[in-house]
């Protein structure tokens, strides 16, 4: 699908989005519904084009990408169900804006992995940088190492499960969803959170503003055991639960026009 815009030729990818100039490198070895390719000689855009072409156009449902080499913005914007394996590490913004895929990363990820993920599963074997799962909307994000600062900032749904420790300001301004941190959490945990739940297995260095211990229920036990079972993580440690204290709730339910009528 090509179109001329002014003097410049713009080609559109499988989803109808503009990708000026770059072309699909077509280097993957396809075997039925599985494919594998080496990312080492490719640019970020070529890797993403190849990946999208495989899952959208060539009917592949299982893609293995070798040697991602910590490049930034890999595997972003995949909006279909498929299985993607990165054999190595990703840089910043890995797997952002995805909706549906099951992703397995054998190395580590840099800052802002899985930002604004809508649904699906991402399992990271190594450590993750700061802002992991920022504005996460849904799906499961499992980090088997430790995460940096501000993971789950502005989280609006889904689950972030970290087997290691977490840095400062974890769950800053989170609005919904759950975070499970199996080891220690840094200072400012759950600072200014609106809602949602943070479970911490280790010590909390300091709670953030308006983050308070919550009451444990059967549903919490069931939820944690289910997540540990799904990802084969053995038996869960003992957790403390933290929720919003709602002391910062200074708004009402009235629209400005309604307020005029009432007051």
């Amino acid at each position: 699908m090509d179109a001329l815009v002014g003097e410049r030729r713009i080609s559109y990818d499988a989803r109808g989005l503009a990708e000026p100039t770059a072309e699909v490198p077509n280097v993957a070895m396809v075997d039925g519904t599985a494919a594998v390719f080496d990312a080492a000689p490719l640019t970020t855009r070529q890797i993403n084009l190849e990946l999208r072409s495989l899952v959208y156009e060539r009917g592949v449902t299982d893609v293995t990408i070798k040697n991602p080499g910590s490049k930034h913005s890999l595997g972003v914007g995949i909006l279909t169900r498929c299985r993607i394996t990165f054999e190595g590490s990703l840089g910043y913004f890995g797997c952002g804006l995805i909706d549906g895929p099951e992703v397995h990363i054998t190395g580590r990820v840099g800052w802002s992995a899985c930002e604004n993920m809508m649904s699906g599963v991402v399992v990271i074997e190594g450590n993750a940088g700061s802002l992991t799962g920022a504005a996460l909307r849904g799906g499961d994000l499992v980090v088997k190492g430790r995460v940096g600062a501000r993971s789950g900032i502005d989280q609006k749904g889904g689950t972030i499960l970290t087997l290691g420790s977490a840095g400062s300001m974890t769950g800053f301004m989170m609005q919904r969803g759950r975070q499970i941190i199996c080891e220690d959490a840094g200072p400012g945990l759950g600072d200014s959170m609106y809602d949602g739940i943070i479970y911490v297995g280790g010590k909390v260095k300091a709670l953030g503003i308006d983050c308070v211990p919550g009451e444990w229920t059967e549903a919490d036990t069931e939820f944690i055991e289910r997540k540990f079972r799904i990802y084969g993580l053995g038996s869960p440690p003992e957790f403390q639960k933290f929720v919003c204290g709602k002391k910062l709730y200074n708004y009402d339910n009235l629209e400005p026009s309604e307020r005029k009528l009432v007051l």
Partner: protein
Amino acid sequence: MCGIAGIIYRNGNGGRPLGADMTRMLQSMKHRGPDSTGYALYGPASDLVLVRFTLADANDPRDFEFTERLERHRAEVEGRMRELGAQIMNIEFDTEYAFRAALRYDGDLKRLADYLEDVPGCEVLSLGKSLEIVKDLGDAESVADQYGLGKFEGTHAIGHVRMATESDVDISGAHPYWAYPFADVAVVHNGQLTNYFQWRRRLERSGHRFQSECDSEIIAVYLAEKMSEGLSLEESMNASLDDLDGVFTYICVTGDALGVAKDEMAAKPLVLYEGDDMVALASEEIAIRAIIDHEIETYDPYEREVLVWTR
């Protein structure tokens, strides 16, 4: 934005080319800062004092008597070195305006640096027994080519790619900063300091001189002053976590150590690889991957962390 990188070989240099390694790390982070690139490299320690200085900037207008003026200023610098009792063993230049002199000199370093800096246009980039600071406009590969850094052998180094935000694109705004007038101490910094003027006034009152308007220069002089009061590098860096306000990840190097510190917000990135043979750290992992081809374990240090390695 800016990008910083550091590397220290744990057993001598293990046959690795320091200059080429640092160039690869910085080049892979070019997207973080294309304006200027700087290196602080530690070669084998000598009994000579190494001086790196510039007499003009790469983007200075080449006016009518530019070359004559450089010649005149260079002669003046050499004259002043001799006047203070320094014996010039060797003086070489990589560009028409950047020089490297090796001196036999056992006098006061501050007096020497101050006297040289009073020559119009002269900026002393570094002074020390093993430290050499090279910085210029452009990306890592062009600076390394210009100054022949590919062949530089040594034990540890830091580097910086700059995206100019607070001050001009010129050599004095580029990192690393030498801790004027303390020998063999240099710093690269990613972030902004908000109590810069407070510290600048404090340090100026105790007699220090600043070469630039850049907030990062404070860190180098602050640390060197703490160390000259008898604190170790690690103790000085720990003190800086409370004394410096703002967001920062900085790397400080001395003749035999390399340390990194992060502020209490952990606002600026750093990825760390600690291997048996080397420690490599950078703003982005892509820089570490540029020099290590096998799978490695890396992590991001947390807030208020100070880590120091000695070679």
